[in-house]
Structures are given as C-alpha cells and as structure tokens.
C-alpha cells in the first residue's frame, strides 16, 4: 500500500468508461434529418470526468420489471405478419459479456403502424400486436425475443420518405454512461441507402453493425426465421481521465 494520499485517492476513483471511437456515433446536428435543426445543442458540450454518478447505474431486475420475451401473440392470439426470432449478445468493447442487463424493444407492426395515438399512418392496427418487449441478458450476455417482422412506414422528413424496417432497442448496461438507444435493421433493405437516420453515422462499418444478419442457427424449424443482432456497449478505460481533459 502506498503511503501517498494522492495515490490512494486515485486508486479509489471509479474506472471511467472509454470515449467513443471517432466516426462511430452520429452527430447531434445532422441537416439531412430535419428534426435535429432546433434540437441539437449549439454550444460545445462540457466534459464531465466520470465519477460514481457516471460509472454506476440502476439495477433492473425481472421481479420489478417482468420480462416479455414473446410479443408475437397477445393472450394466445397470434399477431398478423411474419413471426421472427431475434437473438444476440450484449458485449462490451473488450469483448466481455454484459450479463443480466435489461433490453427494451419497441416497433411497428407488420403493416408499418405503431400502436400509438400519434401514429396516423393509414395502415391497419393489429389488436394482437402491441409491439413492446423486454428481456434480460443471461450470464453470457445472450438474449432472445420472438416478435413479428416490422413493416416500413412513411415519414415527413423529405419527399416520399420511408423508414426502413427496424426494431428499436434500449439498453442500460452497468453504468449511467453506458446507456444506449439504437435501432436494428434488416439485411438487404432497399430503403437503407435512402434513410437519413441510418446514414448520419459517419463510418460505413459502424452503420453496417446496426444491420442484423439472417441466422440459420437462430431459425427454428417449422416456426420462425431467425436474425442475429449483437450489441456492444462502451468498455471501461484502462486509466482514469484527468480532470478537465478534453476528449
């Protein structure tokens, strides 16, 4: 043990999460996505060195937040559309599994309509599809949901704009600064090259990792096609950031 108080203090500091790699995250200001115009911060962000506030976070448990892992039917009545299985792993940037973490999902139905008052798209609602699920990763970070393949739907961002098929995902990880909300897309979707929300991620490799892959192993015979979507949360940095360091 060191006799230096400073070293002891530094050793007690929580290990921060690593900064994001350049080009892998979308900007706040993305002119092609019109809603960012009045909603992006115009001033530079202030760097917040990670403290216990950022390195710890809520612990969600299935007892308080019951899992809902099969949303392809309601009260035993099958929803309309193509039943699919989506599975994957939650890992961190060191490749370690993120166990027992909560994933929330929400999506449009097979016709491209959300079970939501604000959604006025002229496509049928499905009484047997609410489109909301919740699962927890297991010890190895694995998770799995059964759902319906979501339809594409129009939006008013630009002329003849359509969102590609997608499923929304929300994860909390193990600390406040690991929060991730993203969207999973489907392979071969012709709308992807036209979608400003997808394309605002600068690096093609980072974009492509939002596209799930068809997976025969996840596919269940006589039941449903399977897709695989692995999710990576920020890793912990090896060394603490100095106060005031800009990233």
């Amino acid at each position, binding site marked *: 043990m060191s006799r230096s108080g400073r070293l002891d203090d530094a050793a*007690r*500091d929580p290990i921060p*999460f690593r900064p994001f790699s350049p080009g*892998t*995250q*979308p900007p*706040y200001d*993305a002119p092609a*996505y019109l*809603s*960012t*115009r*009045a*909603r*992006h*911060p*115009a*001033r530079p*962000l*202030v*760097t*917040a*060195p*990670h*403290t*216990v*506030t*950022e390195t*710890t976070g809520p612990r*969600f448990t299935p007892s308080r937040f019951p899992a809902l892992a099969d949303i392809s039917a309601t009260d035993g009545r099958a929803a309309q559309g193509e039943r699919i299985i989506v599975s994957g792993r939650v890992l961190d*940037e*060191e490749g370690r599994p993120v166990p027992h973490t909560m994933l929330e999902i*929400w999506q*449009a139905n097979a016709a491209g309509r*959300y079970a*939501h008052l*604000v*959604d006025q798209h002229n496509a049928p609602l499905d009484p047997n599809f*609410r*489109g*909301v699920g919740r699962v927890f990763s297991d010890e190895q970070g694995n998770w799995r949901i059964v759902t319906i393949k979501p339809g594409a739907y129009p939006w008013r961002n630009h002329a003849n704009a359509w969102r590609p098929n997608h499923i*929304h995902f*929300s994860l909390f990880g193990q600390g*406040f600064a690991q*929060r*991730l*909300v*993203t*969207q999973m897309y489907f392979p071969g979707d012709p709308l992807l090259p036209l979608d400003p*929300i997808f394309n605002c*991620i600068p690096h093609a490799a980072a*974009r492509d*990792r*939002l596209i799930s892959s068809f997976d025969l192993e996840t596919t269940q015979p006589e039941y449903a096609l399977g897709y695989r979507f692995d999710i*990576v*949360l920020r*890793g912990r940095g090896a060394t*603490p950031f100095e*106060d005031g360091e800009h*990233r």
Partner: protein
Amino acid sequence: MPTATASQTIGPYWHLLEEKGWDDLTRFGPVPEGAARITLTGVVTDGDGAPVADGCVEVWQADPPASDDFLGWGRAATDAQGRYRFTTLKPGPVPGRGNARQAPHIAITLLARGLLKPLVTRAYFAGEALNDTDPLLAAIEDPARRDTLLAREAGDGVWQLDIRLQGEGEGRAETVFLDV
C-alpha cells in the same frame, strides 16, 4: 475488438415503453428515515422556443444509495407543454475524483425525436453550500450557463429546472450539456 454500437434516435413512438409510475422513484418502498421526498420538474424547449412535447426524460442519482426500495432511476414523458415531473428523494453529496466532494445532484438523460444520441445534463440544487466547490460547476466559467444546471425551489419541496436545447441571453441560455 468491436467499438460501441452506434446510437439512433428514440423517435416519436417510444411512449409504447412508458409505464405509469416510472416517474415516481419512491414507488417501491417507504421513504427512509432522514430522506426528504421532493418533486423535480421543468419544461423542455427547443431552439424555436417551442415545447419538446415528445421527449423522454430519465433521471439517475447515486444517492441515497440504491436499494430494493429505491432504484435511483426514473423515466417521464414530457407533456404537451414540454413539462416533465419526477417524485424522488433529495440526494446528498457524493464523492468526486480524488479528494473532491460533489454537491448533491441528479443526472438527467434526455432522449427525443431529433436527438440521434442522448443529451446528458445535471440538476444541482440552488443554495447548497457545496455548489461553490463542486468540480463540474467550477469548470463552467460563464455564470449564466452555470445557472442552467441549478434547480430553483419553486414551492415546498418542489424544484424546477428547465432544459433549453438551444438559446441565448438572460434566462434563456442553452442548458449546459455534458460529454460523458
């Protein structure tokens, strides 16, 4: 090793996830002895001064320490006027880096249509003595901007913190958002 998965907007239909009661962090158990129940509320506005009526506001606090009765986390939708409202317990100070002590604060995450990634800020409590020495507050030189992180007491146990996504001038300064 792969880098972290890219963020995408929560979009306008996240309300499907909304659960009644998630804006009350005290819902799971009794208020512990010595803790004070408070309301944290405010209005979220955009660069046109219009209310952000489809936003998702999440709060997280490291104090009082999380337990079975107190998750330390909550989620609220903004209403048609852009207002969010939480019931929670007033936090105490928590350790900062090195020898620092942080003034009592609640971390805030804002997610919305038009935000491709979360906006993060903090609610501090006006009048707390530790505010003068809090490392994060001290790092913000412009007092008008520092003030954007200070919730004001607007009644008995009710603390108000408005969030402005863009803006300038007295009482209209853009909220300080944090790079975490």
